[in-house]
């Protein structure tokens, strides 16, 4: 599952034009001086400007600064304070939803906040994308797919945003057992990815996983080859190549690719484990008992991944 972030900095350029203190805070954030911005914004929020309708923005900026300086709880508290003063602010709802989601992807409040933000500000692609992510991680694939569909139609999205949206939409459509639509979305993501600099192998790998899951092995192999051409160190693609060779009973090549997967980058624990499992089996086929048993020992000594 991909969890991606659209640039929060969009709020820095939002209208309406702020009063002086707000302008100062924005500039401090642009310069990377969050500590100063926190002081400025805290002072601002305690001033009489609190009653102005656009004053939701200082809460948002302050929360961003707290979050960037590792004070997640204070960021959340700030946003809750803001929502108390401005209960209808979609920006505050969205930002609080995002933070709660990052803190705990299964948090139902995060889902409620993001849903509300989408309802109040239907033209906000960021809110829709975050809501889609929350939905994807909480088995609400219908919501995920429809939110991404709506987000993609909104104007002004750059390629990076589209890449992430198409990829997540494809994943959710696949979960909904809509293979044609899922493939279409993932193909679009892959096409954008091929144009992107730098190329993101993790996004392309989502497409590989879809194709493998749907039994479209040949196509998957082509995408794997493309990934390895562009990102030769990408471990998950080497692992897929190893699996393909294993299926084709090309034992030596399977071992070679599994080793490359272990040496590569981008592997998570599950991939590393899968590579060792595959090595154990293929060494055993070759009669290399000592190597096979060493791999087995590695697998057994590393707590097994399981799907409860």
């Amino acid at each position, binding site marked *: 599952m991909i969890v991606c972030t659209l640039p929060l900095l969009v709020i820095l350029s939002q209208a309406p034009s702020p009063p002086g203190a707000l302008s100062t805070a924005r500039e401090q954030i642009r310069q990377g001086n969050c500590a100063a911005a926190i002081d400025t914004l805290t002072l601002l929020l305690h001033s009489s400007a609190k009653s102005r309708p656009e004053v939701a923005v200082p809460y948002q900026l302050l929360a961003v600064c707290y979050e960037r300086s590792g004070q997640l709880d204070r960021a959340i508290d700030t946003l809750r304070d803001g929502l108390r003063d401005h209960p209808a602010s979609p920006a505050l709802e969205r930002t609080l939803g995002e933070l709660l989601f990052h803190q705990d992807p299964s948090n139902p409040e995060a889902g409620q906040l993001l849903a509300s933000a989408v309802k109040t500000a239907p033209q906000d692609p960021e809110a829709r994308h975050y809501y889609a992510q929350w939905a994807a991680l909480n088995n609400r694939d219908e919501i995920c797919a429809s939110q991404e569909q709506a987000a993609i139609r909104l104007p002004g999205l750059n390629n990076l945003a589209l890449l992430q949206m198409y990829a997540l939409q494809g994943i959710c459509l696949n979960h909904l057992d809509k293979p044609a639509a899922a493939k279409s979305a993932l193909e679009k993501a892959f096409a954008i990815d091929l144009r992107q600099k730098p190329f993101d192998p993790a996004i392309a790998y989502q497409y590989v996983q879809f194709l493998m*899951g749907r039994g479209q092995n040949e196509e998957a192999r082509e995408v794997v080859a493309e990934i390895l051409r562009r990102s030769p160190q990408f471990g998950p693609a080497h692992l897929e190549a190893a699996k393909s060779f294993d299926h084709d009973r090309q034992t030596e090549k399977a071992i070679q690719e599994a080793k490359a997967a272990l040496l590569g980058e981008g592997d998570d624990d*599950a991939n590393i*484990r899968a590579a060792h499992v595959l090595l154990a*089996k293929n060494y055993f086929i070759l009669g290399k008992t000592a190597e096979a048993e060493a791999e087995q020992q590695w697998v057994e000594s590393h707590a097994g991944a399981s799907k*409860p």
Partner: protein
Amino acid sequence: MPAPQNLESAATRFRWATALIAICACLPAAVSVPQFHDAAPQAKFAYVTHNGYTARKYFIQPMCGGIAILDYDNDGKQDIFFTNGADLPSLKKSSPAYDNCLLHNRGDGTFEDRTEAAGLLGRDLGYSFGVAAGDYDNDGHTDLFICNAGPNTLYHNNGNGTFTDVTEQSGLGAKPPNTLSTGAAWFDYDNDGLLDLLVSNYTVWTPETDIRCQDSGVDKYCSPTQYRSVANRLYHNLGRGRFEDVTAKSGFGSARGKGMGISVADFDGDGFQDVFIANDTERNFLFMNQGDGTFKEVGLLYGVAYNDDGIAVSGMGSDAKDFNNDGTVDIFYNDLAEQIFGLFVNEGRKSFRYSSVTAGLSQISRRYSGWSAGFIDYDNDGWKDIYSANGDVDYLGVNARQHDTMFKNEGGRTFRDVSANMGAAFLPLGFHRGSAFADLNNDGAMDIVITALNERPRILMNAATSGHHWLLLDLVGSRSNRDAIGASVKVTTPSGRTLFNHVSVSTGFMSSSDKRVHFGLAQEKSAKSIEIHWPSGLTQTLANVRADQILRIPEPTK
């Protein structure tokens, strides 16, 4: 060649039915015949699979409703035995609602409750899970072994329609305290002609140690990962009704898991029976028989311990049959929704290839949580299809109640979901658990018996609409164990097609199926040869055997 004993050939009636269907198909208002219809409503019995559910959820409740198919009175018709749960937390069968149940097959499509007369109510057994049917003393009468939360139970078939609890003198009641035994399999691991017993164990559990899990104040069943793993147990049959626990010295004691389905077969072709055990949330086991009374666990090295991603899933029911008719035994297990049912193709008896994706199972099984399952050639085309009894673990969620599935084997390569064509009786939603296969009316088409939590079981009679031919082989061992469990059979048809199967009663989860070996022959009206490899090592060949009969084949004395 032994004299075929045609117990009841339904070929004539079958051909009439087929002809009638063909005629009806030409009529504008033709009504298609469902593949299966439920015979249970016509049978008078009180049995409901009661899992002791109350507002408080206990860990063991999802695992209830074992089934054994056996011809307990040797009248040529397969009877049905069901296990049942008990009150919780007392673990007592506190009312007749928790009685186990024996249904006598009357042969006319109806079944009669003979539980009490047979002495099988089991009111002193507590909470029961799986059951295994086998003639452990080779007296010609099929006995029953029942897995319980407490001590397990061995019932000896007295040969007069009654059973006697002989657990104490057999030595099979002994197991580590509070071990939860879920399933069992009879097989002769040392080929001495006596059936040994393997019991799959899940964990150590009592109502007092049950962990209570909740989500937002609502009870839910805990993840199995919260319970500790235990070893399965192997009991060696010493003869004269006595068994010895050989768990430690056989090698079974060194592997701890959460045992569910047991599948027995000779995976490496060395003449000794091996064992696959599906584990819940832990790696699966493949115990290869070393031929000297010991086993080596090689699941990882053979490629069946994990799925293709190196992940342990919630392995549930399992079966081991040669689904692609290449002469080697393959493995299937089912698991929970989103995990994909597992299919492992035997490659030259040296390893297995994870084939769920290439066989199409990843798409068609993803939504289902399977329990009991197995290979069954429901349409007699010679390709073993896959049946799965489905339903989620818990009652929560929109997809909790599920229908069963039938995946049709397309030429030994891929599977297609044909559940919707199986008829309304096949498709009710529920929490289906045990399942066993048998030809209950001896018409050559395999029927299915299924339990579901807190519901009456279904007895799905196969309408045999394909018009395909078949053979049902009833092997009787003499030097080998009398049930012939472990005997492998190769059928060659006049067209040169080769079909493979073997005698195995342990199929799926908590269940035990018809021991007769079934072959669908598609359009072919005979078998050119039938080659039987008996566990004793003898090989027997029959030539030119006509189809559509139940053939009783005694093991040659030489």
